[in-house]
């Protein structure tokens, strides 16, 4: 009788963990090399989880408690340049404090992966979720994705490394996670085994871009006005290529792990035949989906589309999922003061994406859930009713609404 010496691959382990702890598991599985920490709620729970993994010997990385967010991001930026796989992150004003380092990273083509535990910007002092912090990198050359569940957080972290470190891309990637709603809520998460992750995620190889005495290159020389256009253009080309690389990564991920099979860019919920569609990102999907189900029971053709990647922006998918509706309401957990129509950031992105369609739905801006305010079922009903009225009358009374604000 022959005995197989090959161990059967261990099954996924189910763990009751928070979104941040799920990301920490992804970092363990990705065998990151350098990680930096600096406290700010709600992102810092990921670093607490990482610290525990390191102190227990479950993760082998240089773990550096930095003196500020600026230091944190500069440390990993340089570690990435010598070829190390790195991670760091922040929230709210911490993310802002690091902004200089964050802004230069894409041009250096360093595939840093960072978590933004979304938090309102001080002042007024607030710990609650708002998306304006992470949105500040929207125009800086970072890839930017938002996750909805702890499972998606873990999976997306693995995917983020795969895409960011792909030589065709070499761009940093930020993962937006709603403060408290996702960062702190515990749910059951499938934590895959290391062999599967190794199959999915090759080692980071910086190749001839690596800073090392064997490869004595000069990184970030002064180019003045001579080369900035070309550098920005290359950054843009990488961002354009990211679309295909993201699709590839999700395809492989699905093959290996059996999850993340749908469209990588948008999640569409009862939207195919909907007259009106609510559109948004992050954890507001939970109340919105429940609200949509209830309204469907009452016979209203309401649907929901959740944006998963904001950069690169999935224009074809957004056009495709929204074009059939009569009215679209974009729910933003952020705001853009003084912007067109006094709308918010996603709203303006969506309107711009739909502009070229021969037949466009009406688009309304809903500013909702700022500073961590709950997006309630009542809010969902209120927004849907506004949209249903627009769909019925074909008239937009008001381009924007603040939902759930005290009188």
């Amino acid at each position, binding site marked *: 009788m022959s005995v197989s010496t090959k161990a059967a691959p261990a099954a996924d382990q189910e763990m009751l963990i928070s979104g941040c702890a799920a990301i920490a598991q992804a970092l363990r599985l990705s*065998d990151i*090399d*350098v990680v930096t920490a600096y406290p700010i709620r709600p992102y810092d729970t990921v670093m607490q989880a990482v610290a525990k993994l390191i102190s227990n*010997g479950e993760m*082998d*990385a*240089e773990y*550096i408690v*930095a*003196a*500020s967010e*600026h*230091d*944190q991001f*500069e*440390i*990993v*930026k*340089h*570690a*990435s*340049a*010598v*070829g*190390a796989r*790195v991670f760091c992150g922040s929230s709210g004003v911490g993310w802002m404090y690091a902004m*200089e*380092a964050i802004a*230069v990273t894409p041009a250096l083509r360093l595939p840093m992966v960072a978590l933004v535990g979304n938090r309102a910007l001080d002042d007024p002092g607030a710990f609650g979720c708002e998306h304006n912090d992470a949105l500040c990198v929207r125009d800086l050359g970072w890839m930017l994705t938002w996750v909805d569940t702890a499972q998606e957080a873990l999976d997306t972290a693995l995917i983020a490394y795969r895409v960011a470190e792909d030589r065709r891309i070499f761009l940093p990637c930020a993962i937006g996670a709603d403060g408290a709603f996702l960062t702190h809520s515990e749910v059951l998460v499938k934590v895959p085994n290391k062999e599967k992750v190794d199959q999915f995620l090759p*080692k980071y190889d910086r190749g001839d871009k690596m*800073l*090392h*005495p064997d*490869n*004595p*290159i*000069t*990184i*970030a*020389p*002064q*180019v*003045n006005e*001579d*080369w900035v256009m070309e550098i920005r253009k290359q950054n843009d080309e990488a961002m354009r290529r990211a679309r295909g690389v993201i699709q590839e990564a999700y395809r492989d991920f699905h093959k290996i792990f059996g999850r993340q099979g749908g469209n990588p860019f948008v999640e569409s919920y009862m939207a195919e035949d909907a007259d009106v569609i609510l559109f948004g990102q992050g954890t507001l999907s939970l109340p919105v989906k429940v609200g949509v189900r209830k309204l469907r029971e009452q016979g209203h053709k309401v649907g929901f589309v959740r944006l998963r990647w904001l950069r690169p922006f999935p224009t074809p998918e957004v056009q495709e999922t929204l074009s059939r509706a009569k009215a679209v309401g974009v729910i933003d957990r952020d705001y853009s003061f003084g912007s067109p129509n006094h709308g918010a950031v996603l709203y303006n992105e969506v309107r711009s994406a739909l502009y070229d369609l021969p037949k466009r739905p009406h688009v309304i801006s809903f500013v909702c859930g700022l500073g961590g305010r709950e997006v309630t079922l009542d809010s969902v009903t209120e927004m849907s009713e506004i949209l249903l009225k627009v769909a019925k009358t074909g008239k937009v009374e008001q381009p924007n609404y603040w939902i759930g604000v005290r009188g």
Partner: protein
Amino acid sequence: MATELTVLPTQNLEAFKGVKKLPVEEYFTSGHRTCQGCESALVMKLMAKAAGPRTVILGSTGCMYVANTTYYSTSWVVPWMHTQLGSSGSAAVGTAAGLKALMRKNRIKQEPINVIAFCGDGGGADMGLSSISAALTYPEYNFLILMYDNESYANTDIQLSSMTPYGANTTFSPPGKARRILHKRWKKNMAGMLAAGHPECRYVATVDASYALEMMNRIRKALTIGGPTFIHSLDPCPKGWDYDPIQSHDLGELAVETGVWPLFEIEDGVLKFYGKSKSIAQGRKRKPVREYLLRQGRFAHFTDEDIDYFQKKIDLMWDRWLIPGAVCIEMGDDIRKQLTRAEQEVAAAEAKQ
């Protein structure tokens, strides 16, 4: 798990024994666009030569970035990367940590690689102070932070920094009709402050490129001793200090001879003056600061009164400070008394034996 390497070994860089023994290889060569007579550029050249080829150099924004790494004509032969104005400390930590992780995981060859991050006085003593201070607390990484001090934000057109000498004419402190002296702050003691505040930092020194060999050997010592280390160099800057470039070397010497710039090193907590500063500390007469100040256009508006004030401050530094150039604290009477009492007790005990 990979083999545990808590601290990597360093290169054993022995002191150069005389100018004639210097290697001919340069690792900072042609292609840069610094002003004629720029001592900071000389510091870069000597620093790279002292460190040798197995080195990674990181430079924060300033003249030594802007003028040295123009695209297509970088002057660095060793690998070089830019870091943000206030990030020399973080750049050093990140690079050392990245290399260490990769070596520990056997992804690159295990070998001692010098990591040097440099910054100007603006980037180092002002904006980057916190980052440098933090960096000097990580004993597990080997790197040197060198602050080249041309005493102004030179690259942005000579604005005053916290390292600019009292009263100097800069674009942020021009002498005017109503106020001759706009800048009344006294320079910080960077090296002393960093040495005193960072017990894990095994080596801190001040250097002056007019004494090139001594300077290079201090760099070699810092890199050999390992852990986080710091060196502060004083660099005459013809543009900012306003003098004929031919005088750079002389001014570097004068800074030491007048006692304005004391040369010292602190190795494992033990402070030593060296070079001419050693003889000054032992009683050799200092040249009057007037000779140093009046050779620079930035002090051209000084009256005798201003020069006297400057001289008085330098005298104070040498005569009253706990450690000239490093620790500006005098002993209070009770501490002095305590120390004398302790000395008396020791003397009494010795007499008894």
